[in-house]
């Protein structure tokens, strides 16, 4: 009754953002017969790639730049736990992907001679970041989405909320999805599944991330037995608007913006003297927090902040290069950056960690691939450099699509079809957990807010053993309380109360993996800074954290990071 007839495709793709659409196009181009189901809980052009602003990095211009330089910047930025073989492969493919996007119509900003323009991003040693004014993600996503429309073999399942992976005989066979329009459960079978659902910034209260970024894909894979990697590394972007957490792009510093404290000092000279405003994000966010703790920040109704000053850039440059920054600051904090400095503070932005994949996007589960923020290859290690993530979506999205297509061509996961009972059981679970009469249970918003609060306290810019432990304990209680929730909405059609409850379930798993990873990494590296364990410990922790899900919480293992040509050194800028 509440199950729809199943549909069958060659590849089932979950998520329709930058990585997902790139993967879909790569897959259908790799094999002229194959069909891809692109399943997304929102219309693809709503995906969070749309909010990326500053740019996408790649050595498109070889004057004063090289693959080695891009690789080294990325590795140093990662605080030396990115896998160097993956980084090298990534930087070599990057320019090709950026040009591919140009050929698909992306309106990259241009130099007067008609070539694509570049700007210098934080932690990058030369201008190698392509951009489309300050709406790069928006333009990339729409160019990708509109291009995808010409492929009839990419079949969209818009507004279908995926609840679980269908796994049988040690291989993934598809997904179960709630069709929001009918409220029924739709089994979508395939011979390979690619997950491109993005990060999980919404486990924190103050984030640049959209409401849809609830770590669904990570949690689904985690539950299907796939480990999560490096989850303790969560990037704080140094410049978000107080109150809303709206992102003010790094491009505003790339174009020449300054950071000032209350005393009018460009305080970064005390922290990253050679790079100043173009230092990497982890160091800048820490510098701002230090200024706040030293009482050198401004005090406002949404807490402390410092100033990002663009006034010296002039109206023309701001309009040309940073129009969106101007629009956002004017609209949301009532400040015109042409005339006044913008109040900013660090804000949760990006998950370096994610589903454990290799360079091809393959996970340890047969037939399952992942790419984009949801995956951890890892090229980002302990701290991602700004403008590497959009390129990561393209490069690894394309590879995941291509390799999934290859896997399908070689037979895929179809030795024996998955029993129908899997989807039936999933519907029964959803009905039992959420739609039957649970009276006077807790509201999901209460649990969500307490989870976010715990994560901010325990896994912020600076952490220490006690606070992480407290967050972890809190999360375990919340996990237990989650069993007694009740939702208001028991209807079928477009039940966003139900999907929010399932998202919260996903987020609790993710948050716990983050806290556990943070607790056990007794060192400070990149975005993970412990006040009780200062400094890097290369002897013990030149490793990736691998988290397996168990009923009693995450079980952690460690795997050495791949180091090829660049030995770890002190990270100074």
């Amino acid at each position, binding site marked *: 009754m509440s199950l729809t007839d199943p549909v069958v495709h060659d590849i089932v793709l979950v998520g329709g953002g930058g990585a997902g659409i790139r993967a879909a196009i790569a897959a259908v181009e790799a094999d002229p017969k194959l069909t891809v189901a692109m399943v997304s809980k*929102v*219309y693809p*052009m*709503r*995906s*969070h790639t*749309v*909010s990326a602003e500053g740019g996408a990095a790649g050595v*498109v211009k070889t004057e004063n730049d090289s693959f080695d330089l891009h690789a080294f910047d990325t590795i140093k930025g990662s605080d030396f736990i990115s896998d160097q073989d993956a980084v090298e492969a990534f930087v070599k493919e990057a320019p*090709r992907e950026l*040009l*591919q996007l*140009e*050929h*698909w*119509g992306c*309106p*990259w*900003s*241009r*130099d*007067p*001679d*008609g*070539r*694509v323009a570049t700007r210098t991003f934080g932690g990058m040693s030369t201008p190698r970041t392509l951009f489309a004014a300050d*709406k790069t993600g*928006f*333009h990339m996503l*729409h160019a990708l989405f*509109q*291009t995808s*429309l*010409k492929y009839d073999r990419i079949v969209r399942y*818009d507004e279908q909320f995926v609840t679980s992976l269908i796994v049988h005989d040690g291989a993934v066979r598809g997904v179960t999805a709630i069709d929001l*329009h009918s409220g029924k459960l739709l089994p979508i079978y395939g011979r390979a599944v690619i997950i491109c659902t993005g990060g999980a910034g919404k486990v924190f209260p103050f984030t640049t991330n*959209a*409401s*849809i970024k609830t770590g669904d894909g990570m949690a689904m894979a985690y539950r299907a037995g796939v480990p999560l990697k490096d989850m303790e590394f969560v990037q704080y972007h140094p410049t978000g608007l107080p*109150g*809303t957490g*709206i*992102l003010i792009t790094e491009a505003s510093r790339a174009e020449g913006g300054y950071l000032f404290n209350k005393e009018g000092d460009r305080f970064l000279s005390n922290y990253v003297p050679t790079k100043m405003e173009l230092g990497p994000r982890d160091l800048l966010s820490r510098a701002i927090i230090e200024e706040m703790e030293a009482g050198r920040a401004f005090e406002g109704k949404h807490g402390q902040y410092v100033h990002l000053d663009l006034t010296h850039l002039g109206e023309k440059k701001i309009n040309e290069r940073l129009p*969106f920054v101007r*629009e*956002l600051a004017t*609209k*949301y904090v009532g400040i015109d950056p042409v005339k006044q400095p913008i109040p900013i503070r660090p804000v949760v932005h990006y998950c370096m960690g994610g589903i454990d994949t290799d360079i091809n996007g393959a996970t340890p589960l047969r037939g399952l691939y992942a790419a984009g923020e949801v995956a951890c290859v890892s090229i980002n290690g302990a701290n991602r450099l700004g403008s590497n993530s959009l390129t990561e979506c393209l490069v690894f999205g394309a590879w995941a699509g291509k390799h999934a297509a290859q896997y399908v061509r070689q037979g895929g996961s179809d030795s024996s079809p998955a029993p129908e009972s899997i989807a039936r059981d999933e519907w029964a679970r959803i009905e039992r957990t959420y739609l039957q009469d649970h009276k006077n249970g807790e*509201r*999901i*918003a209460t649990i969500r807010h307490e989870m976010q609060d715990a994560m901010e306290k325990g896994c912020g810019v600076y952490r220490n053993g006690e606070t992480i432990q407290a967050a972890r304990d809190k999360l375990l209680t919340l996990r237990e309380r989650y069993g007694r929730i009740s*939702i*208001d*909405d028991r*209807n*079928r*059609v*477009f039940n*966003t*109360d139900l999907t929010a409850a399932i998202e919260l379930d996903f987020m609790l798993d993710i948050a716990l993996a983050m806290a556990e990873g943070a607790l056990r990494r007794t060192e400070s590296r990149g975005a993970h800074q412990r006040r009780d364990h200062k400094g890097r410990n290369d002897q013990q922790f030149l490793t990736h954290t691998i988290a397996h899900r168990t009923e009693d919480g995450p079980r952690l293992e460690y795997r050495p990071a791949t180091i090829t040509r660049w030995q770890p050194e002190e990270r100074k800028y």
Partner: protein
Amino acid sequence: MSDKMKKLTVTRYNPETDSAPRTQTYEVPYDDDTVVLDALNHIKDQQDGTLTYRWSCRMGVCGSCGMNVNGVPKLTCATFLRDFEGDITVEPLANFPIMRDLVVNMSDFMEKLKRVKPWLIPKEEKSIDEGEYLQTPRQLEAYRQFSMCINCMLCYAACPVYGKHQDFLGPAAIALGHRYNEDSRDGARAERNKIIGSGEGVWECTFVGECSEVCPKHVDPAAAIQREKLANVLDKIKSFILPRGSSR
């Protein structure tokens, strides 16, 4: 949040129990920073989890949260409560079928978007190894404005022509077709204009101009449509004078 309170009258429609939409009034606290979307989130979290609407980025770029606020199509994440005297009415975007409460069915647009072929069809194919297609800042400027459409559907909700004739391609779809027509790298205007220049295309438009008034990204779809009309007429004249090879 301060103690100031505001009344929101919201359209409710549950296809499982209702035969027609009704309204429900909620009261929410607000301050100078509160947008209509925040108010809806407050209701959903604290008062009534059944209230249904779309949202995502909360920074005016994903295009999910369009609704009619006091009768005017708006992005609710960029519409502040402080700007309204008295109570506020929140309705689903006009001119679309209502799926539930404030959620409209926009599959019609998704079909139409595809029909205008909104992808680059290059004048002359170039391989990636040969590098990028060159495009000067000025050539970019010629279509940039029309590439800013976030598909939020506000223009369709403001367009009386679309309200009366659902077969009209509509402002956003035509603006996006125009965006590629004006792109110096593209060479498929003639192909695209089979649909844009048809009876369901630009000639349905009577130039009310409200689409451009409500557009939150200043895309100016009305201008795009009128320019396509002009280009179509010139094309017709050209093909009349020069029957062959008149594709500009």
